């Protein structure tokens, strides 16, 4: 994992020569230029792109209809690219103290947006093929939701000073238990509880080995992922394949919120979702409030930053870490159930590294729940596009898009853009002396 290596302070790097904020601004500008040149000038002058905002997942009729919007591809991409160049220039010149990472997030989303515009272009104004943006957003929201659960799990553990690289394993465990419970009891609530329990159990194993025996947390995490990957394949082969009644299709039904779900464009994305989605939003608010406003949060952060200082005022460092790692595991476990409820079924290998992307999102989001949400949206869209671009006949190798979250993460942890500062005691074993 590159994550651990990047944490030790090293000799001065490029970013310190230039100033981090400037490099960040330059990166935004470069993305803008790329959009303008490749997507804008790269498409023929007369080409157009048609987009629709059709809320495919709303069963009831909506009182609005936006129809199809046809925009000139070259002009749109040029405008969006220029906006980013301006945004980048603003960052370089003004060097604002806050919100630079958020602007970078906007640049990422613009990039994906113009990529879609560019790939969907036709030679002239045409109604034949159009791209349904709302559908893309809804599809991406499923992935983003799963990522948020994982990132929150990471935030819970790492704020207390324990690296949870086992998120992937907790996803697998949650998805496996979730499908069996959902198939047998037909209750997603029971499935979620079961997923939380298996996630918490795996978290406890991590906590026990890391806190009692001071094992290397990253190695324990990788061991848990490997173990769960193997165990789930075995159980799938031995149980789920011969007894398909335990692995029925279990798509969590959307629960439309009256009125809110009918807001044009974004209503169906945010307010016509499964219970897992609403629970996720609630959890983000809860963890954010807990960490930064409460006594509990102050103690957790103290334990993650300077455990000895926390211990010197009577805080039980080991207990705080146990509680957070187990709770974090439970959250990732629910994330696994949510993943199963989006996919409908359990299949081994389906999580395909999503846990690591969630971890990357936690870093990109600077160990904050709100940051994790921004990162998950960006990464969620790119993961979804990578898996579904074939349907839109896009001439870009999907592997490039799959690399996107990791490329951003490498840029972030290597300090090339932005500044990330993990909790000071993150990953370090604590020993009473």
């Amino acid at each position, binding site marked *: 994992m590159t994550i651990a290596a990047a944490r030790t302070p090293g000799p001065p790097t490029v970013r310190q020569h230039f100033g981090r904020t400037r490099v960040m601004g330059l990166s935004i500008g470069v993305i803008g230029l790329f959009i303008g040149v490749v997507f804008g000038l790269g498409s023929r002058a007369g080409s157009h792109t048609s987009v629709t905002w059709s809320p495919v997942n709303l069963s009831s009729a909506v009182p609005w209809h936006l129809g199809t919007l046809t925009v000139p591809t070259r002009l749109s991409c040029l405008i969006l690219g220029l906006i980013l160049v301006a945004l980048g220039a603003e960052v370089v010149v003004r060097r604002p103290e806050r919100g630079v990472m958020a602007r970078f997030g906007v640049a990422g989303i613009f990039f994906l947006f113009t990529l879609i515009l560019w790939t969907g272009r036709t030679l002239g104004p045409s109604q034949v093929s159009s791209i349904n943006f709302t559908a893309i957003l809804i599809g991406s929201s499923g992935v983003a939701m799963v990522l948020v659960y994982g990132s929150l799990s990471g935030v819970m553990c790492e704020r207390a000073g324990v690296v949870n690289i086992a998120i992937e394993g907790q996803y697998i465990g949650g998805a496996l238990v979730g499908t069996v419970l959902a198939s047998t009891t037909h209750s997603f609530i029971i499935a979620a509880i079961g997923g939380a329990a298996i996630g918490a159990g795996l978290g406890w194993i991590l906590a026990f080995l890391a806190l009692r025996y001071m094992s290397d947390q990253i190695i324990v995490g990788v061991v848990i992922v490997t173990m769960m990957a193997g165990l789930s394949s075995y159980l799938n082969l031995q149980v789920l394949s011969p007894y398909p009644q335990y692995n029925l299709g279990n798509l969590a039904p959307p629960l439309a919120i009256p009125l809110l779900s009918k807001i044009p464009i974004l209503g169906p994305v945010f307010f016509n979702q499964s219970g897992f989605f609403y629970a996720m939003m609630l959890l983000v608010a809860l963890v954010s409030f807990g960490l930064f*406003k409460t*006594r509990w949060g102050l103690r957790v952060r103290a334990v993650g930053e*300077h455990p000895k*200082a*926390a211990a*010197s005022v009577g805080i039980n460092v080991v207990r705080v870490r146990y509680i957070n790692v187990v709770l974090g595991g439970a959250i990732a476990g629910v994330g696994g159930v949510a993943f199963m409820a989006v996919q409908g079924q359990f299949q081994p290998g389906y999580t395909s590294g999503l846990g690591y992307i969630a971890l990357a999102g936690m870093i990109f989001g600077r160990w904050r729940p709100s940051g994790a949400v921004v990162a998950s949206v960006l990464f969620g869209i790119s993961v979804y596009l990578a898996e579904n671009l074939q349907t839109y006949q896009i001439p870009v190798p999907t592997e490039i898009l799959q690399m996107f979250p990791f490329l951003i993460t490498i840029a972030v942890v290597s300090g090339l853009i932005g500044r990330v500062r993990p909790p000071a005691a993150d990953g370090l074993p604590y020993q*009473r002396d």
Partner: protein
Amino acid sequence: MTKRFDSLVANDGIDLVVEPGQIHCLLGENGAGKSTLMNVIFGLLRPDEGEMLIDGEPVWFTNSGEAVRRGIGMVHQHFMLVPVFSVAENVVLGFEPTKSFDRLDYAKARDDIRRVSKEFGLEVDPDAIIEELPVGLQQRVEILKALDHDAQLLILDEPTAVLTPQEIDALMTIMRSLADSGKSILFITHKLKEVKEAADVITVIRQGRVVGTAQPTDSEGTLASLMVGREVILTVEKEVRSPGDDVLEIRDLVVRDDRGLPAVNGVSLDVRAGEIMALAGVQGNGQTELVEALAGMRFVESGTITLRGRDITNKTPREILDHGLGHVPEDRHRNGLVLSMSVADNLVLNTPRRAPFARHGSRNLNAVRDNATQVVRDFDIRATSIFEPVSSLSGGNQQKVIVARELSRPLTFFVASQPTRGLDVGSIEYVHRQIVRQRDEGNGVLIVSSELDEVLSLGDRIAVMHQGKITGVVEPTTSRETIGLLMAGVSEEPARA
């Protein structure tokens, strides 16, 4: 009270009585058992025997939270403050005022801090972030934290190690006013001058035992001999030599620290052959980074370093060592030794690939062994075997291993960072003699030390560093006050006010 670690008796039947309104000094050398005693009192360690009474009531604490609740506050040598938290967050941590839903009551926290600050004259902005405060203020926050928890007994563990002389004076004033308001203070130190200045009562401990009590009116010599068990010569014997030409020339050096901030900011310094240049200053003012740059362990942003006419700026450590630089690093565990390797291997760490220790890429273990046998005898390194891991040696002997290794090859220049930190008096004398010997052989020597006594007694010239700059180069006859002002950044010219 008795505390054992396996076979080692760290505290052997210690008796100690602290009265209210009193500054009680606990004097002892490094390793005398002072910290163990404090940690037992503060509930961080459990004693094997003995009892502790607070206002006549017997107690032992199983964790430091209990100690705090019973009115004991401790200011650790390494501050127990979370750097990214505000003053208020640090002060209330563990004893937080809350509103509904477990929410922190910041308004109440701020008010409490302002009230306590006012009561004891400790001005601090409750919303300041700890890492942005100077060290002296951070220490003030530590004291404030203890007072906010209603401490009656305040333990200060080597509180002056990181302070400038002026900050030390301020601390002494604070301690006195706290004692006057009825608090008890237990002041741990190994610095005689401070003891005489601050204490009402002095208890001296040596090798885990109380060896006597003394009065602040007793002479430094009396205190020192109690502390080390024999008369000590507090100055280094050395003859006056006339130095030669410049061997080391540093010009406009800029070096950044781990956070990317300029730690050395435009330093120019010359060291002549046959001269000991002592670099004084409070820790963390760029001395560490300067030496690291010199040894090739840190990137030089701009400026040059010239050793005997050759530019060694940003050369690799190997090239620099081959050019005749001997280097005793500040942190011997991290940069000086490979702890798990044997004494013999550590003695050839800087020349492992050279004849006679290696030939054609394979090691000559006989030569390594013979070398170790010889060096251990010459430098009086106490080790049961040259094959035992260097980690099992005492701190003083570990330091001797490093010094012996660096000095057992021909040098042109010798740099030693905090060469006697944590050593007993015998080892200090030994290391000092070796340093003087290097000078007498005509090499340039640069010593970095935060002990003013060491700087004054060793240096032929003294350079003082403050916030990455040299604030003055003075003769060793200069008064402590003048050097203190230089350490605080007041430049050499007489004050204009």
